[in-house]
């Protein structure tokens, strides 16, 4: 897990922490079932206040990325969890939408687009 705080950012520190952890969960850098560092440990490592990290974790929990288990800490929810599935789907949609936009902009046919996706898919699997 990586957390890098910028003082130049428009986002408040707790939101920076939240967004960075969220991004790493969604792109698989932080795997499902990972136990996140405790609120106090994270505060110390990043050099911020305890309330700041508490707020970041509370947000992540509210938004359905992590769950806190008594005595264990904050755990990243599994990929097949309803809410998490939704998040991943949204992320896929966003990516595909960008691709479709570009495809339409250069006048690509739908079928051509499908073919491109299939061939890339196969390539990735190999």
């Amino acid at each position, binding site marked *: 897990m990586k957390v890098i705080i910028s003082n130049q950012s428009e986002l408040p520190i707790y939101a920076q922490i939240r967004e960075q952890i969220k991004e790493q969960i969604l792109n698989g850098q932080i795997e499902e079932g990972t136990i996140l560092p405790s609120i106090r440990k994270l505060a110390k490592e990043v050099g911020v*206040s305890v309330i700041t990290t508490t707020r970041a974790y509370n947000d992540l929990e509210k938004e359905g990325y992590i769950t806190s288990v008594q005595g264990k800490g904050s755990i990243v929810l599994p990929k097949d969890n309803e809410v998490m599935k939704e998040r991943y789907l949204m992320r896929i949609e966003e990516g595909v939408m960008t691709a479709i936009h570009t495809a339409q902009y250069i006048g690509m046919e739908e079928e051509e687009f499908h073919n491109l996706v299939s061939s890339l898919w196969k390539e990735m699997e190999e």
Partner: protein
Amino acid sequence: MNALEVKGLCKNYKEFQLKDVSFCLPKGFVMGYIGENGAGKTTTLNLITHLCHQDAGMVSIGGITYEEDTRRYLESIGFIGDESYFPGTFRLKDVKAVCKMMYSSFQEDKFDQMVENWKLPAKTRIANYSRGMKVKLMFASVLSRDTSILILDEATNGLDPVMRAEVIEMLQEYIMDGEHSILFSTHVLDDLEQIADYIVFIHRGEILLNQTKEELLESYVMVRGDVADLNEGRRRKMIGMIQGAYGFEGLLRSRDAEGFGSMFAIEPADIDHIMLHYIKNGGKENACR
């Protein structure tokens, strides 16, 4: 549970009054006590550490007052001042002897360990220690016994960045277990602020603001622009406007920022600016005329 509770604290001096100061620090958290020079920070801290007596009000640490259990009260406080409180003629062994005598929980080996880690010279008199060494010595004397709250009075003033970073790390280590708390005072933009959970702002002996740092930073924004673009309504919303030859700068409540258009630069406020503009505004909540 509160690590520290201050209620209705008053102290009258000839030319300065501390008026009805109240705040609570929950266990496991860090509070920054801020204000300009002479605002009453040290007076408050001296009343908490019982270097002087209050005229009214009460202070409790971990639920007990000085009057209830003086020894326990004093032993639970670790105090670090802006200058060394050890006599200049002392050497390391004298400091150790005094700590041993005064505090039942003092651990000699822990003290020796810290002194060795920080390479504090044994034969030099404290008077000849550098500022950084004196601070380290105070930390060693305090961290080598069982305390529940650290009280720092401008303790990082005049320390170099390396030493400041070390102090911050030490403090964060101290509160790691959630059982220990910290109250620190400062009057300068301070890197200590980054670890503060709560901010209490004192001005002319009275508490002006008392909030979590997150709330405080979210409640205000800075606005800068051309005075010509300010109408009466906008002017009234501003807290402590500072006018320069080429424009103005003011503090705004975040919710008031909408009334300012794109000709103004609006950005997050830091604690220093919030403090500065409040003081410019005569320490009043209300915006200027």
